[in-house]
Every structure is written in structure tokens, then in C-alpha cells.
């Protein structure tokens, strides 16, 4: 046999072995529901870490299975879940239409992962009383919280808090800086 045929046969044999595993994980399965504490922080696949031998002892044709972990969608920069900030218009606490799809995505994730919790942090710009701004920031966080509850997220998964003006970009008073600070952030715990 030529080399090419050997590779083809070996590939076919390997495919048959893998298909016979009782614990196969399809590469496009969604992430498992339970927390996976062994997912690396940078979201890279744990390729090779979970090599499992399916070889009965003494087999002359051992095959080692390599499992590619599905990416944690919270770590995926291309997922809609990567958008964690909701911006508000001046003097308004209404959630603009442009953020509806982002909220839908987070709601779907949270309802599909009931063990996951998130804190919603409200912010304001620096003008005016610190304490009144703390309450305004809370109003922003609360608007996002209510929207997520309405989409089916459980109350126990969410907490709305305020940072007021305390984390505002300091000193800048141009329109861009002010708009940046009228913001609620979703922070997964």
C-alpha cells in the first residue's frame, strides 16, 4: 500500500474509534450548565489537558481522545455577551432600543445558567452632589435590573448597585466624557 492509503485507513479507523466512545462531546455543543473551574482565564481551549485513553490494556492500536472544550461565551469577544455597558441619554433612565438585543442576550445566558450571578453597576458624571449622583446611578442600574427580570432572569441572580460619580473619568467635562459616564455596567460574579 502506498503511504496515502495507510493514512486514509488510519484516519477511518480513528474515526470509528471515536464514534464508539460513549462520552463524546460534539464540538458545537453549547457550554455545560455547571461552572467549569478548569476553564483557563484566557478562554483558550484545554486541548490536550483531557487526553483520555480509550485503549483497552495491551491494544496494539491505542487511540487517545482529545477533547476541545467549548469556549465560555462570557469570554468570547464576538459574542453579544461581550457588550456589558448600557449608555443612557442625558436626564433619562429609559433603556434605548439599541441595547435591547444586548439585554436579550444576557437574559438568555442568565436564564440558561441559573447559577450565574451578576452585579449591575450604575454610574454618573461628576456634576452635582455625590449622594444624589449615587442615587441617580442606582436608578440606571435598577432600570437594567428590571429589564432583565422582565426577560425572565431570577431576582436572586442580580444585584443593582451604584458607584455614583466615584469612578467617573475625572476632570473631563466635554460631551464625550459626560456621555461615557451615563452608564450601567454588567459585572458577572
Amino acid at each position, binding site marked *: 500500500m502506498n503511504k496515502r492509503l495507510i493514512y486514509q485507513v488510519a484516519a477511518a479507523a480513528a474515526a470509528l474509534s471515536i464514534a464508539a466512545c460513549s462520552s463524546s462531546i460534539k464540538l458545537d455543543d453549547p457550554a455545560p450548565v455547571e461552572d467549569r473551574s478548569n476553564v483557563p482565564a484566557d478562554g483558550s481551549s484545554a486541548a490536550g489537558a483531557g487526553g483520555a485513553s480509550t485503549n483497552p490494556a495491551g491494544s496494539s492500536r491505542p487511540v487517545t481522545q482529545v477533547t476541545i472544550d467549548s469556549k465560555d461565551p462570557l469570554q468570547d469577544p464576538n459574542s453579544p455577551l461581550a457588550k456589558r455597558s448600557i449608555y443612557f441619554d442625558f436626564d433619562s433612565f429609559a433603556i434605548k432600543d439599541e441595547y435591547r438585543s444586548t439585554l436579550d442576550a444576557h437574559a438568555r445566558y442568565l436564564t440558561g445558567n441559573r447559577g450565574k450571578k451578576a*452585579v449591575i453597576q450604575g454610574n454618573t458624571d461628576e456634576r452635582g452632589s455625590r449622594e444624589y449622583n*449615587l442615587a441617580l446611578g*442606582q436608578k440606571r442600574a*435598577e432600570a437594567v435590573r428590571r429589564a432583565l427580570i422582565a426577560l425572565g432572569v431570577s431576582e436572586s441572580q442580580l444585584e443593582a*448597585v451604584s458607584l455614583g460619580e*466615584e469612578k467617573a473619568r475625572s476632570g473631563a467635562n466635554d460631551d464625550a466624557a459626560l456621555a461615557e459616564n451615563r452608564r450601567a455596567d454588567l459585572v458577572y460574579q
Partner: protein
Amino acid sequence: MKALITALATLPILFLMLLSGPCAAQMRIDVSGVGATQLPISIADFATESRVAQEVASVIRSDLASSGAFRVIDPQKTVIETAPPDYPGLRSSGAEAFVGGSVTKLGDGRYDVRYRLYDIAKQSTLLGESLITPEADLRLAGHRIADAIYQKLTGERGVFSTRIAFITRQAGRFRLNIADWDGENVQSPLNSPEPIISPSWSPDGTRLAYVSFEAKKPVVYVHTLATGQRVAVANFKGSNSAPAWSPDGRSLAVALTLDGMSQIYLISASEAGTPRRLTSSSAIDTEPAFSADGKFIYFTSDRGGSPQIYRMPASGGDATRQTFGATYNVSPRISPDGRQLAFITRREGRYFVALKDLAGGNETVLTDGGQEESPSFAPNGRWIMYATRSGGRENLMAVSVDGRIKQRLNSNRGDIREPAWGPFAK
């Protein structure tokens, strides 16, 4: 003398803040505005064998000079309090009052600080005291003597023995600080990588309530200064903030969001207990402040569409609006005599300290920086300290309640904000 005393009674206090020490900023005071006449007072060096005790007389001189009510003469001699003053010499120096004193070390290591205040025209003793003082409190003895002299000659209670609290931010860290009114003895009860806001003195001056973001959300703590013990008295779901002490020191009114929007509740000041809700609007209610007699709570609310100041009974109930005119009036503070309301008002997009006479309704704007916040009354009601920004930096200022004198405190390191003037020393 009487006419002078009447004139002096309307004079504000200047205060000088010089912070020294390894972790404190150096501060400089710039004054604008003019005081009126000043009573010339001669203060001799106190007779003492102890070098550290010599600073008692210099503390008295600095306090009285900084008050703006006195022109202080240093006769450059030591005069014990029992020695008869050199009346002719004092008269020719222009002095109208004279202070002599002594500091004697006692067998148990403490000091006996004695002084007498003399009226030069009448050639009589106005005041005399003996203060037994540990060495660590010699400056405080000087402050107490200055208070006594100030009150005797102006009729007003002095604030020289008081302390102030304030927050500094520097190199990404936040400190809660307390200092003597003259900026000495800066100590930092709390040092944190996260913001600290809204410090508030307990009525007896032994504890500070404040809001700390160390848990990445606002939580109200009560901090006992002597021991460093901290109790998180409000750590409910959501945000916890704006602590205000009841006059009996047992409760705090706070702003909590555990029911959704910011509302005002009453909680224990000593332990994490169950909150009692006082307001019931569907708007933002925050920044509670008790009246001096404890019967009312003033607070900020936007229930009418824009943030204004309201007043309700301290047990909760119907609230009546107190501020009108401007569309943004926040941060209510009541004067110790209960007659005046200080607050922050927004005019044409800029924020100023305003003062309203609660009986007559007359309102004056006291400042002109445009970025003011956090007003705080001195315990004698004569001054309001506040935070502002200038040149891109945050600094503290003080203004007399008649608006005539402003002092700007410049620090060469860090941003300073959130001042809270402490109570009279017991």
C-alpha cells in the same frame, strides 16, 4: 470694651491649616475678604522649665490671630500668671488685654497649665484657670485656653478645640483623615484602595460614620476612633449611603435602595439591625439631616420632578418642601441653632453654597467657585466649610456665614474632599 466686643461678635474666624507629617499634605491658606476691627491682645511666654510646654503660648497666639478677631502682640517675655502685669508698658504697646501663664510638671508626669487674662484698662483679672494635662495633650490645653479667652472677649464659643474630618485621594488610594482645626495631628483612621465618601461625626465626637466602596458597592460603616473598630451598620442589597446621626447618637438616618429606589431609613448606629423605612415616595429620597433638636429630618428628594430639599418629622410622615426658585437644590445641612439651612444650589449649570433663613425665608448665595459640594457647619454656626474644585484640583474652603470672608486651603499633594466639621470637644 463693650463696643469692641459687639463688633468682635460679628467677626468670622479665620483658620489656618498647616498639615505636616509623613502622610499628610502641606496646606496653605489664602484669604480673601476683609475683617473689621481686631482686639489687640498681648500674650506672654508661659513660665516653664519644660521645652515642650513652651508651645502652649504659641498655640494660643496662633488660634487667636487666626480667628481674625484679635491682633496678637508677643511681648517677647515670660510672665507667670500670678505676677502683676506691667500695665504702663502694655498700654504703650497698644494692648487692651494681656495673658500670662505657667506650665509646671507634676510628680505623676502630667502638667499643670495655668493662665490669667487681664483687662488692661480696668487693671483687673477677667479669667484664670488651672488645667491638669498629660504631655500628649499640651497643644489641646492651648486650644482650650484660646477658646476660653475667645468666648470671654467676644461672647461667642470658640472652635479651636474642634477637629475636622476629610477624605484625600492620592496615587490611587483614598484616606479618611481627621485633624485638629489648625491642621495639626493629622491621623488616618482608614486607608483604602476604593473610594470613601460622606464622613459624619457622632454627636460625642468618638465615632465617624462613612460610606466605603471597599466591597465594590457602597456600604455604611460606623468607626470607633479610639479602637479602630468598624461595624458595617448598613450592608443591604443595593446601595447604602448618606449616614446622618440622630442628636442622641443612637441612630443613623441613611439612604438605602433595598426596595428599589433610594429611600430614607432609620438604623441602629451600633449594630447591623433592621432598618425602619421613613419615606415612601416613588422618587429618589436621600441626604437626610436631623434638625438640632432631633424632631425633624431634612432631606433631598426629586419627588416633585427636580431635586429639592424637604422636611419631615423624624419618625417619618408628610414632607414639606423647603427650597424653591432654582431647579436643583441638594445637600441640606442645618445650623447648630436650627435657624439656618445651608445647601448646594445650581444656578445656570454651576453649583454654589447657599444659606436660607428658615424663619424669614431670606436666601443668600455664599460662594462663587461654581463647583461647590458638601457644606459643613462649624459647631458654633459661624462658618461653613465645603469642597470645591479649582485649577483641576479638589480643595477645601470655608466661608463665614455672613459671606464676607473666604479661605481657600491649597494642598500641594492630592485631592481633598468631603469635609465634616466635628462637634465641640467635651
